């Protein structure tokens, strides 16, 4: 065993104090922010935060869930710093209650409504009117009264003057994933999903894209939560999410980036 001299011990303790101070300083400086985001954004946000963390001192954690659940958590004071919703009503409800940091809300992304069929399907759909054809017996749509994509779809078909005639064929399902599953299983001939969701399944193909100007405006708004204790770090991350590099990543996953 070797003994430390008095002087060495002293310098060790000085060094220890110095390290503790340096560590606490660094952790006060580098923040960990929490972003509550719609579950459909999981992959793209992970990629964007990897890019961010490579060059920033801050770290980003995500809380993925359905937008309405995320909004409820923020209403009850959950410690989220940023809210990224998949639809406007959830953001509006927080806005009305004064829970968002003024001036930080903006529309970040948009998505395109598409019609999908099985990858080897022989169906031809060149306009939404083709949905009325006899060989399309069932169409899967996320619950048209409550789920955002379902609401958007029924509104679009109503604008085209087709909703009343298409409605008897509609099979309402739980969400976009259930729509994909229904089409994949072959139990329905076609389904309405977002372009980004169609991209994750190899068993389906996009047969018709609803033109951006014709379709209802699909918006993913983002804002900093008023009660956030890490607003500077949150702002920094939002700036990164609007950077050219992040925009490229969003586009790669099929999103339309709004300015």
């Amino acid at each position: 065993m070797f003994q430390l001299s008095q002087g060495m011990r002293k310098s060790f303790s000085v060094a220890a104090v110095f390290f503790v101070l340096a560590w606490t300083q660094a952790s006060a400086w580098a923040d960990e922010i929490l972003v509550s985001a719609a579950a459909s954004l999981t992959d793209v946000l992970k990629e964007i935060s990897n890019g961010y963390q490579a060059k920033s001192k801050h770290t980003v954690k995500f809380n993925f869930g359905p937008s309405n659940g995320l909004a409820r958590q923020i209403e009850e004071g959950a410690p989220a710093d940023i809210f990224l919703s998949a639809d406007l009503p959830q953001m509006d409800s927080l806005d009305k209650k004064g829970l968002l940091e003024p001036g930080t809300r903006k529309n970040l992304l948009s998505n395109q409504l598409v019609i999908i069929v099985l990858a080897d399907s022989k169906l031809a759909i060149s306009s939404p009117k083709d949905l009325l054809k006899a060989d399309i017996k069932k169409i899967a749509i996320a619950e048209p009264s409550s789920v955002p994509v379902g609401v958007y779809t029924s509104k679009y078909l109503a604008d085209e003057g087709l909703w009343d005639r298409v409605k008897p064929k509609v099979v309402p399902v739980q969400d976009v994933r259930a729509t994909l599953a229904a089409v994949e299983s072959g139990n329905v001939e076609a389904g309405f999903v977002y372009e980004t969701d169609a991209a994750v399944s190899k068993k389906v193909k996009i047969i018709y894209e609803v033109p951006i100007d014709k379709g209802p405006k699909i918006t993913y708004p983002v804002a900093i939560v008023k009660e956030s204790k890490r607003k500077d770090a949150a702002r920094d991350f939002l700036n990164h999410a609007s950077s050219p590099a992040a925009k490229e990543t969003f586009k790669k996953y099929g999103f339309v980036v709004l300015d």
Partner: protein
Amino acid sequence: MIFSFETWQITLFSISVGLASTLVILPFGVALAWLFARKDWPLKSAVETIVLLPLVMPPVSTGLILLKIFGRRSPVGRWLYDRGIEIVFNWKGVLIAMAVMSFPLLVRSVRTSFAEVNPRLEHIAATLGASPLRIFFVITIPLAYKGIVAGALLAFSRALGEFGATILLAGNIPGRTQTLSLAIFNFVQTGKDPEAYVLLGITVTLAFVSVWCSEWLLRAGKRA
């Protein structure tokens, strides 16, 4: 092993919080089950019903109630928050959600095993001068322990499968509150079925083993 770091992390996290939640509710569950099985008291059936509610209520609504109770806006949540205890978006939230959702299963099975203990043995011990506490630990518990362990295993399996209450109270934060069930949800939402199946396999294995042990103990208990 073929499992990724994340898979290990999620599995170990789920098992540890599930075990912790089961250990936390065990003393309360056993005490309450005994009160249900052996004593008559006012409002007993009302309390029994309340304890059972999480079993039949939609888990999301239980989660909403828990979020209301432990959120910073409520007096309880505020009080805890002022003392530096955060429940929402924290592993403690996962534990509370699991505990509340699995408590009814524990109480029900333990209660049945207490009811199967012949009260005559307890009476005899009492006539021999044993204190009620001694009777409980020396007669009742040893005779009912298989049912108690079986109930604990069942509660643990239920805790592992918890989803609805957890996602609302604790959030679905990878590396912090994400359990097996929450990770499966995330993988399914993003079309990563192969990854979801790996976690599903782990969940099914864990659930199968603990439910099977639980059933085996109950059958062994009946024979004894």
